[in-house]
């Protein structure tokens, strides 16, 4: 950029000469030829130097030959003091050497005596213009430098902001816990963005909670917390935070003034506390996600004396936007996880149903507490005294998986109770699977009377049967998982178990241990289960879990279900059941199994069955009223005789209803010797009869 030199306005020029005539004449000549020029004069270099230190002259003209300090020495001094001031030297006629010396010494020009006035003035004007140009150049240079350093500062500031946002993002994405997230944000903000920071969360019930209070000075932070303890946020809706929460609009107060604070209304407790700690400036931003205000963050300055600007607001709003998103995500995730967990927990049996003559045990090992897997199992009694066992695994995690588990479980139970065969049940379940979903499942029907299993396996690891003597075999055979084929066809397999066998059902998490093949896992399970096949089932499942996974399970959940039918003792019978109607079918199954083992003929078996169930029905109807209680049935069978007792721990009320007396009469007809012994702690019905000899 070229700027025309300004018109020379009153410029000071210093003239130094020991010749009084020249000191008189030259200023006159300059005033005549130049406008707005003031000429000062000095008659010695010493005096001139004094002035030069005081005044920044536009130009200096000095004679070379002077007593004391000469012009050349003065020039050197000027160069040191005022390097930019152009200096012209006056030389005698023909003193070329001096002229050269002068130029070398940094003189702008030299004027020879006798002085050509025109030349002298022209040279002086040039010198002053040159000086002017230099000055402008310097100005421009400075402006440029200032601009550059401004830019540099802006860049550094933006870099810091970006760095801050990057740090914030790292914190925000690191945690799925909204409260922890908000706490770390507050810590991050101090002292980079604020001297004090407070964060608040609005709960789903509308309550607002102060989550974190941070101050750059730990001692003051303590004090701040102490002072704020008096004001639980949700008890006193405090301004101006409350307004930001309500409106979802950010608030910037560059300078907190008495006047502004007065305008806020009566409840400004938190602000008052902040002001006692010398707050200067504040920004409050709402945390808004999907149109809802989830909370607010308040930033305050104090010690730093910093006043917030629109730039700060923009940065803080960006931070709030990211934080709100993270909190919203965390809440959604937490919500989904809770739903999935609740669903899955509700799907797994709280405890396995007690089934007389059968022992069962189950374990569920979650791989991680956060994510809910798709493993499930079920155990139920079927109408004809058989037992249904299910072990399943829905691929994936989360709510949809838990929902599919729920669907499969209820559908399976429904079809099973309807009497469908394992293959028919699994075939029907395959219809429930939607495209993209996949589930493995094995469904077994175990008949304790015959110690046989019928089963259908849809892509699930094979169940293991272990005999009391330690022999063990996988129940092989099956078809692809549910959802793997469009038109699947499932078939039924069956197996005769060794009497008293233990059945083990499990999910792949058990046998898929990191760094080992599935075959290794299957072999380990086989070994572990066969090692002590008669041990108590609860101990067995715990030991098997430990030995197969070697204490370091893989990344998958593990479910394990074990079932064992006790071999009935043909001479003795004992069950204890809740005194409820639904216990009756189970009692009949167990009694039938026992009498079969004791080789009772059909007529005897039926009559004993009816007698026992009549006695139990009486207990159910009369012994406990609305209270809970148990009924116990014991039996003793010899070659010729059978003896049964049914007892309870209740107090009988007089029989009522329309069935009164008929049951007991029937028992007496069927059992010959019947005694009923009521005692304060319960009633015992003792029944005895001879056995018919087997005729068929």
């Amino acid at each position, binding site marked *: 950029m070229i700027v025309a030199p300004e018109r020379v306005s009153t410029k000071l020029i210093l003239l130094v000469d020991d010749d009084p005539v020249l000191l008189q004449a030259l200023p006159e000549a300059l005033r005549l030829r130049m406008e707005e020029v003031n000429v000062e004069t000095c008659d010695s270099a010493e005096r001139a130097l004094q002035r030069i230190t005081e005044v920044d002259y536009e130009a200096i003209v000095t004679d070379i030959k002077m007593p004391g300090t000469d012009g050349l020495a003065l020039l050197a001094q000027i160069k040191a003091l005022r390097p930019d001031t152009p200096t012209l030297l006056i030389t005698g006629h023909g003193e070329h050497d001096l002229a050269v010396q002068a130029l070398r010494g940094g003189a702008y020009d030299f004027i020879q005596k006798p002085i050509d006035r025109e030349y002298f003035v022209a040279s002086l004007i040039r010198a002053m213009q040159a000086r002017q140009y230099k000055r402008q150049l310097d100005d421009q240079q400075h402006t440029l430098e200032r601009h550059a350093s401004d830019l540099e500062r802006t860049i550094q500031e933006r870099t810091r902001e970006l760095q801050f946002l990057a740090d914030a993002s790292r914190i925000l994405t690191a945690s799925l816990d909204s409260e922890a997230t908000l706490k770390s944000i507050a810590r991050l903000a101090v002292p980079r963005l604020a001297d004090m920071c407070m964060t608040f969360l609005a709960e789903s019930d509308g309550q607002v909670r102060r989550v974190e209070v941070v101050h750059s000075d730990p001692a003051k932070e303590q004090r701040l917390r102490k002072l704020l303890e008096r004001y639980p946020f949700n008890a006193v809706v405090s301004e101006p935070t409350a307004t930001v929460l309500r409106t979802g609009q950010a608030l910037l107060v560059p300078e907190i003034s008495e006047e502004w604070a007065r305008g806020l209304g009566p409840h400004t407790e938190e602000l008052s506390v902040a002001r006692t700690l010398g707050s200067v400036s504040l920004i409050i931003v709402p945390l808004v996600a999907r149109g809802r205000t989830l909370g607010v963050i308040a930033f305050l300055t104090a010690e730093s004396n910093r006043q917030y600007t629109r730039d700060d607001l923009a940065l803080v709003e960006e931070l709030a936007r990211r934080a709100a998103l993270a909190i919203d995500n965390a809440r959604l995730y937490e919500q989904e996880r809770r739903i999935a967990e609740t669903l899955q927990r509700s799907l797994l049996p709280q405890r396995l*149903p007690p089934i007389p003559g059968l022992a069962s045990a189950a374990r569920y090992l979650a791989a991680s507490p956060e994510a809910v897997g798709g493993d499930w199992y079920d155990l*139920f*009694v079927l*109408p004809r005294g058989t037992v249904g066992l299910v072990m399943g695994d829905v691929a994936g995690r989360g709510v949809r998986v838990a929902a599919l588990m729920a669907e499969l479980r209820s559908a399976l139970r429904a079809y099973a*109770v309807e009497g469908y065969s394992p293959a028919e049940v699994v075939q029907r379940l395959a219809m429930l699977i939607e495209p993209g979903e996949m589930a493995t499942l094995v469904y077994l029907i175990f008949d304790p009377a015959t110690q046989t299993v019928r089963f259908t396996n849809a892509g699930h690891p094979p169940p293991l049967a272990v005999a009391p003597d330690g022999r063990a075999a996988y129940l092989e055979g099956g078809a692809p998982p549910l959802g793997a084929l469009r038109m699947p066809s499932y078939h039924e397999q069956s197996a005769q178990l060794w009497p008293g066998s233990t059945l083990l059902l499990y999910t792949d998490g058990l046998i898929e241990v990191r760094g080992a093949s599935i075959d290794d896992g299957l072999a380990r399970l086989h070994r572990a289960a066969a090692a002590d096949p008669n041990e108590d089932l609860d101990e067995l499942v715990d030991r098997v879990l430990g030995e197969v996974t070697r204490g370091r399970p893989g990344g998958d959940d593990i479910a394990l279900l074990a079932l064992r039918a006790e071999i009935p003792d043909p001479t003795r019978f004992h069950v204890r059941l809740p005194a409820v*109607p*639904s216990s*009756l*079918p*189970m009692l*009949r199954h167990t009694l039938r199994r026992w009498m079969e083992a004791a080789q009772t003929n*059909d*007529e005897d078996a*039926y*009559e004993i*069955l*009816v007698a026992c*169930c*009549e006695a139990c*029905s009486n207990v*159910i*109807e009369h012994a406990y009223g609305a209270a809970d209680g148990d009924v116990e049935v014991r039996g003793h069978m010899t070659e010729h005789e059978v003896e049964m007792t049914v007892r309870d721990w209740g107090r009988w009320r007089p029989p009522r209803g*329309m*069935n009164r007396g*008929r*049951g007991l*009469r*029937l028992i007496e*007809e*069927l059992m010959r010797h019947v005694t009923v012994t009521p005692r304060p702690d319960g009633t015992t019905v003792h029944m005895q009869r001879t056995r018919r000899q087997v005729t068929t």
Partner: protein
Amino acid sequence: MTVTAMVKVIERNGVPVAAPEGEIDLANVADCRAQLISVVPNTAPGLILDLSQTTYLDSRGVHLILELAERLRTSQQQMALVLPERSVIRRVLLLTQVDKTVPLCRTLDEALQQFRS
């Protein structure tokens, strides 16, 4: 577990024939009763209760049969039971004198004869 009683109903010569499958006991007798009462329209000559698929029946079942017979008698309708000769529940019905109140027939045809006479 509670087992819902399965009552199959057909009609022969205008007579409804109800056949409960499985077991009748305290746990499901109320359900069974509700189903049986609903199968006899007022216009029907009565009810044939076919117990050939019933595998267990105790005093609650006996009471149900007697109650049904009583109700039908009141509304001038008949009732007959079908029970195969070798059925295990026969003894319970005989011991409780059900046969004195409701005719016990070996086959469905025999029971239908009761309605013609």
